[in-house]
């Protein structure tokens, strides 16, 4: 036996194995990597915040006895028919095309059971989705695939999409394997093309034009429906102010942890800012224009638990939206799919090739054999269960903070665990009165 120590291999922090693999992949293929989902890097997030429960200076509400309200009204600024949701957790926009018809139906079913809204995506509104969604938000995107005034009138609200957190400034894509006859027909495209979606709206540029565009949609729908404006988080202070000026009823702010059906990996990981850093400037913008709680703020990007919901609302959001978590609740990345996922080069818990249409869960696919695997009723029930848990968890924490409604949570209920999170969330570092950037 040798006395020599076993050599320890040292991995480069700069050229780690993933980086080396990506350089090798790029050299082999000559094209960037495309995948689904959101950023995988560790970012300052809600986990870096803590809620301060009640003690001597605050008193809590009885956990199972005293009421803690959860409802939210969206679109009170101008719409004749604002939306009243039972819970402040909505389902984010995801397209039929990116998702199977069964998955869209399941989202509608689950959201309706739980008393919340779901949202269309690029590619238009399907009958399955409209039929099963008690409250449906119709997205108005740069591509205008499938956009038509009949569906506009059928919607309960309209969301003008300027960007999404996974790719602010980027257009969408749907690769050819998912552009089936039905998807292509709805989007007026040849079957099997790698569909590109524009990154800018075709008929307006800038906030002054947006004001006219919002007025047009209001005119077409007789001022009945709330108009949301969705922003990918990058410069939220200015974007929120401009959206308010343009006449938005509701701002949807999507952080970089938000998912996508298909985007370049480099885009997902390197563009935009975390939702934790985006909420305070957005709330500041609303407050400075005396519009906080008058123009409602929905935030998204990495919402997973009731704690995330409570913290987001304490930071000033009126509601949150979930996308990736909703797909997981439907059955995405389930351990029972591990063997099948390994056959396509992934594993349960890691699967992000939502762009390629091979999802064994039947969610991010247009393959009829795969999509048939998803039972919309059962998947909808799972989503409803998950939504209930999110709300129960958020209520539990709100009551512990002495709040009779989730909207009564406020920044004074929060502290941060790290200097970075304290600076971004604009709350004190735990155990101190210090908010970085706001003096001592």
């Amino acid at each position, binding site marked *: 036996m040798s006395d020599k120590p076993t050599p320890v291999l040292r991995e480069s922090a700069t050229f780690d194995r993933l980086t080396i693999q990506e350089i090798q992949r790029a050299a082999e293929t*000559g094209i960037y990597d495309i995948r689904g989902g959101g950023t995988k890097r560790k970012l300052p997030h809600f986990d870096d915040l803590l809620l301060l429960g009640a003690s001597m200076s605050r008193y809590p509400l009885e956990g199972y006895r005293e009421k803690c309200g959860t409802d939210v009204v969206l679109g009170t600024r101008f719409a004749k028919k604002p939306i009243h949701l039972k819970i402040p957790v909505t389902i984010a926009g995801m397209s039929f095309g990116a998702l199977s018809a069964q998955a869209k139906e399941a989202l509608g079913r689950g959201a309706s059971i739980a008393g919340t809204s779901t949202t269309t995506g690029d590619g238009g509104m399907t009958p399955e989705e409209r039929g099963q969604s008690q409250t449906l938000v119709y997205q108005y995107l740069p591509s*205008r695939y499938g956009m038509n*005034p009949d569906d506009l009138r059928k919607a309960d609200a309209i969301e003008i999409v300027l960007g999404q957190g996974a790719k602010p400034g980027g257009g969408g894509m749907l690769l*050819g394997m998912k552009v089936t006859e039905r998807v292509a027909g709805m989007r*007026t495209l040849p079957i099997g093309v790698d569909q590109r979606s524009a990154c800018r709206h075709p008929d307006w540029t800038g906030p002054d034009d947006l004001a006219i565009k919002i*007025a*047009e949609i209001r*005119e077409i729908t*007789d001022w009945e429906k709330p108009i949301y404006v969705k922003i990918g988080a990058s410069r939220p202070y200015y974007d929120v102010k401009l959206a308010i000026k343009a006449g938005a009823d509701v701002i949807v702010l999507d952080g970089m942890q938000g998912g996508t059906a298909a985007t370049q990996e480099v885009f997902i990981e390197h563009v935009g800012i975390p939702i934790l850093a985006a909420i305070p400037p957005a709330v500041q913008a609303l407050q400075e224009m005396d519009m906080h709680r008058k123009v409602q703020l929905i935030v998204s990007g990495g919402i997973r638990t009731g704690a995330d919901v409570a913290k987001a609302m304490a930071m000033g959001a009126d509601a949150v939206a979930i996308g990736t978590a909703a797909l997981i609740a439907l059955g995405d990345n389930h351990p029972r799919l591990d063997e099948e996922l390994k056959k396509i080069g992934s594993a349960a818990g890691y699967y992000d090739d939502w762009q390629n249409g091979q999802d064994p869960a039947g969610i991010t696919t247009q393959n009829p054999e795969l999509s048939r695997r998803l039972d919309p009723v059962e998947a909808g029930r799972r989503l409803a269960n998950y939504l209930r848990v999110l709300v129960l968890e958020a209520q539990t924490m709100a009551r512990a903070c002495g709040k009779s409604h989730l909207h009564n949570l406020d920044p004074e209920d929060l502290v941060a665990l790290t200097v970075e999170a304290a600076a971004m969330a604009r709350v004190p570092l735990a155990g101190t009165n210090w908010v970085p950037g706001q003096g001592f």
Partner: protein
Amino acid sequence: MNKFDLATDSVRELNQALHDQAKELTEREWHVSNPGGKHNLVVGVNEALSIDIDGHAGYYCAGMNQKATVTVHGNVGVGVAENMMSGVVRVKGSASQAAGATAHGGLLVIEGDAGARCGISMKGVDIVVGGSIGHMSCFMAQAGRLVVCGDAGDALGDSLYETRIYVKGTVKSLGSDCIEKEMRAEHLDELKELLHRAGFNEDPASFKRYGSSRQLYNFKVDNASAY
């Protein structure tokens, strides 16, 4: 005839009155005076009405039109007949940018010139322009026909899908994946019919046809420089 005077009536009142026709049709002929370049005139109409606008209109005139025949006796701003589904919109003057943007159906006639991005992302509409059009027209256009009796600006038909483009005059430059194509008999017939419907007395044989070479329909490494 139902008459609206936008010197005294509001755009909201006009649009609501037009929308109410979809529920109970009481008047087919409509006349709008003193439009004054106002935005969002006669948007979201969903009935076979005949509407004359006596003057200039602003942004999104006749936006999302269904079934109606709208005639603007003047010029129009950005996005005339945007996302139109059916019907006819005729502009006696010229149009600003994004005329007929994303429109799915119907006929848009512009007797004068159209600005940049005419027919951008069009999805089935027919557009006939008596004069010339600006740059980036038919960008990402998916379906339908664009006829231009004058000239076309830079980057015509960039990233084109299945829209067919006919231009009589010069094309300053073609966009990525847009090429000149053979004018066959069926195209001459189609063009003749479009010119006739639009009311232009032009010889179809004097036009050239442009369309997609379909090289960018699927991502290929070798095409990276085209984007």
